[in-house]
């Protein structure tokens, strides 16, 4: 085709020899001349074909590039790709931690670190003088020295704030550069430090949630999705505020407080004092870093009578009208078990609990027996580590030999050490209808099934609620009353173990409570370490005077935050939380047992 085209062009060309010479019909080329023309034509055709082939190849390549794209090739130019997916790329590579309402507890911020290339700094003295004006915490002499060194890299200051960075840029000093870094920031400071934890300089979680969920928080695929805790910052603050107030009032060396949702095990507040600023971990003492709620295990004292009573009720060994004789102290194996508030008579179960009788609690536990008590404690999770999302978890301390004497002391909370968190979750099971729910620091999905085991019956749970309410209405915990919120609870005063036995003067007082008692929703634990008596408490440092008031004030403060309405005590509510003969009128037609009958019943 091309040959014919060329032929035609040749013919049309006015400079073609054919036009100058005679018309083609008259001239016939023969021999050598014809041969030369034929050769030229062949060469032209060959060259044209070659060019055509090249163009076809180019066209094919163009089609290939534009329409038939290879998947391995980038779809867009590289520079565009890097930033085009910015939506999927988080700005930082460690996920934020937020509380249940979305308040930021921990976040990573991009910061700029200032460094210098001293060889490019023109006037080290002047530059240092200017820098110190913007960053007053730097020492001018030190910076001058650094900027006049021979090296090509010196740090001036790490982690500038954006404002400081802008100020340094405005100075316009040549030879200063910024290196982008990431820094973990805890806007809430010490408030949530034991729960949230902290990271090292390389942003590796070392403690708390930061430590436990280090992998999850570092996971690039989930870095843009914050980790939601179950904590409620307002409640957390209220707990910390009240504990701080009590520490100051009673000159205590430490305190711990927990607010737990009794229905689903969510920890709404967890405060351990003394605490520290997470930004200044290095300066924090060991005591400040110690999480008393999960790592610390303590002999809880009388709060354990809750479990002795529940155990006896559950086994049917005693009912609300039954009781034990607490006239004489128990002497066993060289020990004497006596009462702090001795009544020296037969006590019914509500009285035993209300007056916190060690003697009767010990007798109750002995009736259950060591094996039964051990099994019950096991069921309540006191013999294992609680499974909460923190690396700092203390295992309980309990006797390896569990005989009658251990059974007696454990009944009133001595000889077994558990963490406040374990106590809170076990008390949750006592009041919530009998289910032990695994405590958690992560907000639960309301639709997910709840990991819960039944530990006591619904009936026993109701009776425990009544007993706990009685303690606040008439017993040792009157100061925990928060009008309208039907608080129920139990005091616990334990002597701390020192060198050579228990120390009478250093106490560990606690109050474990739940509210509102007709339908318990929240468990509150408050614990004070070595509180001292004051004039207001008439010199007493026991739980009823030191720990119970914390709970009373706290419940009044947090109930509106948690959306618990104040309860008007209608007859129905009253009958749900009151015990006939104590804080409710005695049932008609059923006379109370006389003292003589009670004595007989104790044998």
């Amino acid at each position, binding site marked *: 085709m091309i040959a014919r085209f060329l032929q035609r062009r040749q013919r049309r060309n006015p400079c073609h020899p054919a036009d100058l010479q005679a018309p083609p019909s008259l001239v016939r080329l023969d021999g050598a001349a014809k041969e030369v023309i034929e050769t030229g034509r062949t060469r032209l055709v060959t060259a044209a074909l070659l060019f055509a082939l090249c163009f076809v190849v180019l066209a094919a390549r163009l089609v290939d590039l534009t329409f038939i794209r290879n998947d391995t090739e980038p779809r867009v130019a590289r520079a565009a790709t890097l930033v085009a997916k910015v939506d999927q790329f988080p700005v930082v590579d460690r996920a934020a931690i937020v509380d249940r309402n979305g308040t930021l507890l921990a976040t990573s911020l991009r910061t700029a670190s200032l460094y210098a290339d001293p060889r490019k700094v023109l006037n080290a003295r002047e530059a240092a003088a200017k820098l110190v004006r913007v960053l007053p915490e730097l020492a001018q002499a030190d910076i001058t020295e650094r900027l006049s060194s021979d090296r090509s890299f010196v740090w001036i200051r790490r982690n500038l704030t954006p404002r400081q960075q802008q100020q340094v840029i405005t100075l316009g000093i040549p030879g200063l550069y910024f290196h982008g870094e990431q820094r973990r920031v805890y806007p809430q400071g010490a408030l949530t430090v034991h729960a949230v934890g902290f990271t090292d300089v390389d942003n590796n979680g070392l403690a708390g949630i930061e430590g436990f969920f280090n992998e999850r928080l570092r996971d690039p695929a989930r870095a843009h999705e914050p980790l939601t805790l179950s904590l409620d910052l307002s409640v957390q603050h209220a707990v910390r505020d009240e504990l701080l107030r009590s520490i100051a009032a009673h000159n205590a060396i430490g305190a711990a407080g927990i607010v737990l949702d009794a229905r689903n095990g969510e920890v709404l507040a967890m405060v351990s004092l003394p605490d520290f600023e997470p930004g200044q971990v290095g300066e924090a003492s060991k005591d400040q870093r110690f999480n008393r709620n999960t790592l610390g295990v303590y002999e809880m004292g009388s709060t354990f009578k809750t479990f002795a009573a529940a155990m006896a009720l559950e086994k049917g060994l005693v009912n609300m009208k039954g009781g034990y004789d607490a006239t004489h102290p128990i002497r066993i194996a060289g020990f004497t078990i006596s009462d702090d508030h001795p009544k020296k008579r037969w006590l019914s179960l509500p009285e035993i609990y209300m007056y916190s009788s060690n003697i009767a609690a010990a007798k109750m536990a002995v009736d259950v027996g060591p094996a039964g008590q051990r099994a019950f404690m096991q069921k309540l999770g006191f013999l294992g580590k609680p499974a909460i999302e923190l690396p700092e978890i203390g295992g309980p301390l309990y006797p390896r030999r569990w005989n009658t004497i251990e059974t007696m002391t454990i009944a009133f909370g001595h000889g077994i050490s558990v963490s406040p968190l374990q106590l809170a979750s076990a008390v949750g099971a006592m009041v919530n209808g009998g289910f032990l729910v695994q405590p958690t620091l992560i907000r639960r999905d309301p639709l997910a099934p709840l990991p819960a085991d039944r530990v006591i019956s619904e009936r026993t749970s109701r009776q425990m609620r009544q007993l706990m309410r009685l303690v606040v209405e008439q017993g040792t915990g009157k100061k925990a009353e928060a*009008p309208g919120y039907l608080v129920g609870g139990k005091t616990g005063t334990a002597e701390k173990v020192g060198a050579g036995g228990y120390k009478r003067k250093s106490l560990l007082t606690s109050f474990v409570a739940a509210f509102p008692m007709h339908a318990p929703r929240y468990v509150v634990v408050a614990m004070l370490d070595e509180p001292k008596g004051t004039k207001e408490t008439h010199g007493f440092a026991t739980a009823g005077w030191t720990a119970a008031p914390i709970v009373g004030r706290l419940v009044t403060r947090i109930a509106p935050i948690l959306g618990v309405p104040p309860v008007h005590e209608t007859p129905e509510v009253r009958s749900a939380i009151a015990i006939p003969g104590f804080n409710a009128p005695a049932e008609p037609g059923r006379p109370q047992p006389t003292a003589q009958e009670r004595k007989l019943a104790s044998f």
Partner: protein
Amino acid sequence: MSRSLTFFAVALTAAVSWGLYHLAYEVQRLEDELIDYNRALLRDREAMQVLAAEWSYLTRPEALQERALRHLDMRPLLPVQIARIEHIPFAETLAPAGAVLSSGDIPLPRPRPRPLPFAATREAAYPNSQAAPRAGTPLPSSPVAPAPPFLQSAAPVPALAAARSAP
């Protein structure tokens, strides 16, 4: 024909080159724009993170409490101050000092105006208005305001009026 084809080819080449040239530069410009936008986006997201941290810091419960104690005359909420919505009486069970009328012709049952503590005139009640409030206008809910004449003159339904004035 050969000539026109040549011209056509040259023109086409020129047009295509011109188009390609512009396309290439347009793409480059758009890509630069995209990068600029993405950079701005990144910068803004970083700024948002900083602001979120700052907000969280400035609204620490501790700081809010301190400020509230210093500047506000407020005390912690007491249980007696909390009421359920169903405990709040409906507006109609309270004596309505002013009534809203949809039509001036329908006499609305309403309580007798309370005896006035002083000799109030209509002009005293509405010092700035010459015209009487018209039907359909909510009247000021001050107890001293007497009912406008068109309501006073309307005969109330006896049974309802008796029921209303009973308490």
